[in-house]
């Protein structure tokens, strides 16, 4: 029998209320759409529509499968395995698994947070994201179909997400799906759940921890390798779940000693620490873990979950740095000291009796970490170790190299360590090694393969130490959601195309080239008045790359969600606000209802919102599910070349004219259109290619003439600049002469006539014949039959 907990209405005590299913009597904030709390099949039709256009592309990493014990099975050349699955479907299944893992990461993170915060703040803590944010949870509204008002309400969204993740994971069990398109649909489904999980997590921490609420001008915090005052004990937090390390700040503030310590973070916990207090600093992304630890910078390391090196215990203990692991997702084999007294924990760590401890009790972490740091600091004053004790040691290490190239063939970037070593051996010149630092992920694989056991990472870091140490910039603290007011302002220009696009640079950092490339790419768009949004590791990298005047992009461009501005939403889970912004455009600007209305919203975004995701160096499963979630929402994503290793892309064939059509609600007709955008997920090789692809994928069928003109202007200019000529396909985006970039109009009309056989009325400077379709101001595209029917009524 169920009874309410909490305030007890006395008369009720003896009324036996058999409450079976608790129904939500939602305030009628919006009439419910067709797919609240969707299961696997509710949105299948939408997925199949997308996937018919954006055909899944598979690039297997291995030719066989060994997922079950009937295998291993040779699936090469699309053969079938013992269970009957073929290579394509097996790869789609792997992608589905990856997306399940990504979605689980965010959802479990959210679950940890929400359960913990409800304990701390109560389930009634209102969801208040500031006066400028009324559409508080666009993803939850659209997907789950509820409007969460309190922390407690977020649990309902989580329960839905958990249920769906388990269902999709079920489908990868041997003997289920046999069709790769249906696996892709499931990958999209679970990735949509991933976005809900992210939204829950970020909303929960914003409201409970008092993070900035959609504030454009948040503080700037120091970012980079050289940011800490080495005269103070350094507490280094690493991971994604700030819940465990926040109490460190609280403790230091309470004891009035915050200024005597340095609290700096790696990965998203760093973002979230700075969102909590801008006294915290950012060391850098995942690739800075070994850099920071091997340099001996921290006096204590506090790890939580995700994207933490799996050799952390070893790496820290080699440098004499005690480790405090906090999350049950990564216990690291350490002793659980939850029940120990704080002093005893401190003693065990400081004395070295334990290399590290598992301490999942946030308050205790808050007390233990500073105390340990202080003690370790005392005996570790010369920790500016520069990776080698002396130049001679460095030299001796370099001397060991035989140029065998084992390292090169195991390095994710095939960095030519051998050449750098040879040069240093011959001439003492470290410059070739120093250059490697700009690209090195500090992943350590080279060291694993080196027969001479050379500390290659240390050699590389030391060789570029001055520059590395000087990599100190500023990151604008993650602001969380986009304001409804901002959406109101930019909604129309985005949908009509006058703001040429929104570039969302998010995710991980195994960039194919130097870290500064991300800044070069984004600045091209900032200058051209695109809106740039960022988060996670990309946002940190941006914060440590300075121009000649020593300024980062954050200092040069404002933090508004507006043309020519750069918005750091925050950590990985803050990516939800980027998807949310797209949804809010459909809702706030276009008045499309959200509640359980996913397909209509995604269709709106696909056809109208020129937003493109960009992840220059994605590698995590979370990046896979984030991207796939954006794809289902109609947002294309461009990834760096390592992104091909996700094995799957969604790439349309623009030359297949019959694939590109919409229903035009205005005319009531099925209409062939230009292929815009023509890919949903595509990997580029170079930064030049990234720039051009991003520009072209911002084009949308719904662009007004003015909008199309602006978008084409940038696309053509960038293509000329980086590809050396007009793009191959610019003309297929031309519906009338009004679409043509003003300055180039004549030139382009000539090209259309000469190279494409279009008929031009040269007197009027008008196109007479040629375009696939004409421009119609009332054009109202959709690919969803139900949406077409609804608005045709």
């Amino acid at each position: 029998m169920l009874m309410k907990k909490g305030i007890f209405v006395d008369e009720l005590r003896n009324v036996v209320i058999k409450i079976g299913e608790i129904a939500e009597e939602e305030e009628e904030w919006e009439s419910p759409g067709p797919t609240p709390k969707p299961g696997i099949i509710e949105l299948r039709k939408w997925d199949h529509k997308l996937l018919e256009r954006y055909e899944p592309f598979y690039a297997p990493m291995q030719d066989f499968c060994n997922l079950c014990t009937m295998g291993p099975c040779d699936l090469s050349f699309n053969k079938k395995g013992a269970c009957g699955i073929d290579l394509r479907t097996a790869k789609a299944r792997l992608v589905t698994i990856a997306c399940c893992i990504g979605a689980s990461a965010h959802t479990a993170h959210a679950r940890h947070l929400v359960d913990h915060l409800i304990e701390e703040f109560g389930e009634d803590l209102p969801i208040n994201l500031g006066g400028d944010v009324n559409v508080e949870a666009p993803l939850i509204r659209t997907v789950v179909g509820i409007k969460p008002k309190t922390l407690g309400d977020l649990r309902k969204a989580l329960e839905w997400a958990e249920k769906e993740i388990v269902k999709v994971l079920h489908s990868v069990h041997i003997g289920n799906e046999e069709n790769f398109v249906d696996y892709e649909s499931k990958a999209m489904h679970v990735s949509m759940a991933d976005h809900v999980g992210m939204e829950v997590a970020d909303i929960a921490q914003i409201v409970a921890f008092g993070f900035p609420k959609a504030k454009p001008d948040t503080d700037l915090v120091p970012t980079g390798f050289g940011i800490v005052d080495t005269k103070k004990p350094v507490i280094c937090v690493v991971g994604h779940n700030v819940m465990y390390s926040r109490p460190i700040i609280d403790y230091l503030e309470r004891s009035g000693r915050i200024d005597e310590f340095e609290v700096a973070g790696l990965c998203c916990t760093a973002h979230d620490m700075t969102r909590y207090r801008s006294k915290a600093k950012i060391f850098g992304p995942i690739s800075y873990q070994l850099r920071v630890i091997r340099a001996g910078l921290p006096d204590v390391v506090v790890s939580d979950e995700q994207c933490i090196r799996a050799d952390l215990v070893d790496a820290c203990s080699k440098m004499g740095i005690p480790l405090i692991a906090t999350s049950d997702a990564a216990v690291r084999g350490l002793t659980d000291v939850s029940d120990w007294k704080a002093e005893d924990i401190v003693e065990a760590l400081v004395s070295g009796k334990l290399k590290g401890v598992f301490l999942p009790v946030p308050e205790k972490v808050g007390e233990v970490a500073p105390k340990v740091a202080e003690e370790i600091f005392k005996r570790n004053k010369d920790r500016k170790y520069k990776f080698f004790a002396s130049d001679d040691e460095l030299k001796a290490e370099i001397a060991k190299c035989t140029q065998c190239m084992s390292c090169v063939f195991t390095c994710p970037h095939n960095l030519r360590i051998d050449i750098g070593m040879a040069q240093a051996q011959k001439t003492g010149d470290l410059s070739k090694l120093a250059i490697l630092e700009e690209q090195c992920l500090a992943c350590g694989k080279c060291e694993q393969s080196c027969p001479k056991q050379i500390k290659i990472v240390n050699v590389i870091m030391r060789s570029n130490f001055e520059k590395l140490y000087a990599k100190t910039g500023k990151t604008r603290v993650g602001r969380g959601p986009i304001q409804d007011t901002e959406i109101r302002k930019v909604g129309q220009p985005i949908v009509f195309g006058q703001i040429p696009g929104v570039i969302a640079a998010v995710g991980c950092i195994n960039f194919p080239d130097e870290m500064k490339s991300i800044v070069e790419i984004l600045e091209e768009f900032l200058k051209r008045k695109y809106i740039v949004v960022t988060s996670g590791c990309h946002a940190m990298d941006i914060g440590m790359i300075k121009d000649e005047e020593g300024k980062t992009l954050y200092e040069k461009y404002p933090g508004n969600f507006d043309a020519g501005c750069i918005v750091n939403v925050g950590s990985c889970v803050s990516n939800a606000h980027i998807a949310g912004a797209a949804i809010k455009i459909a809702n706030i600007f276009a008045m499309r209802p959200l509640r359980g209305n996913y397909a209509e919203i995604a269709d709106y975004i696909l056809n109208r919102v020129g937003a493109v995701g960009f992840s220059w160096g994605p590698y995590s499963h979370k990046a896979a599910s984030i991207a796939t979630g954006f794809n289902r929402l109609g947002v294309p994503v461009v990834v760096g070349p390592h992104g091909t290793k996700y094995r799957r892309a969604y790439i349309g064939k623009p030359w297949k004219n019959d694939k590109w059509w919409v229903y035009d609600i205005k005319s009531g007709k099925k209409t062939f259109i230009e292929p815009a955008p023509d890919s949903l997920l595509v990997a580029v090789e170079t930064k030049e290619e990234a720039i051009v692809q991003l520009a072209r994928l911002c084009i949308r069928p719904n662009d007004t003439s003015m909008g199309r003109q602006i978008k084409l202007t940038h696309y053509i200019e960038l293509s000329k600049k980086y590809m050396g000529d007009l793009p191959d396909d610019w003309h297929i985006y031309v519906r009338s002469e009004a679409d043509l970039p003003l300055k180039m109009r004549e030139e382009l009309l000539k090209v259309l006539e000469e190279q494409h056989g279009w008929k031009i009325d040269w007197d009027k400077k008008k196109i007479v014949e040629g375009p696939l379709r004409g421009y119609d101001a009332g054009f109202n595209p959709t690919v969803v039959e139900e949406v077409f029917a609804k608005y045709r009524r």
Partner: protein
Amino acid sequence: MISKEEKFPIAKRYNVADVQVSRDATAVKPVVVVNLIKKAKNPVLITGGSLLREEKLVEIAVKFYEKGIPVIATGGSSKPLIEKGVKPLFKTYTLHQITQFLLDEDFKPNGKSFDVVLFLGFLPYYLSRMLSALKHFSSITTIAIDEFYHPHAKFSFTNLTKDKEMHYAMLEEILSRI
């Protein structure tokens, strides 16, 4: 330990999928590439981003073009090529997209399907994935002529990373014979 002369069964593992399966690229010398190109009905050279950093590769690609082999330029490699007079078949699409197109039998940008595709100037891990897709899902003859040996290609130069000059010489050798 077993020399080829002896008539000895080959070491065939009990299960082809244990440790490894499928075809590894045949490591070839320039002359083989020449023959493959000569026999091709519709060969094409695809160039990648390394051309932005390695001028010699641009020079090589230009020569291929001048020998009548059409060029698809990706990764921004069109820029130096166009500057040198090449008119690439494509310059806008990524190798990822071009590969997706190649997998489709209807893709005939110069009137017929490509039967032999040469790859020059790519990040090895990026090219490797594309070669894998083409290996499993198409019947195209793929030839990697970069400095790294590419197992997923049908034919590949052997590994030439120790000796850039040898790589260039091999490329020149091809050019001198087609």
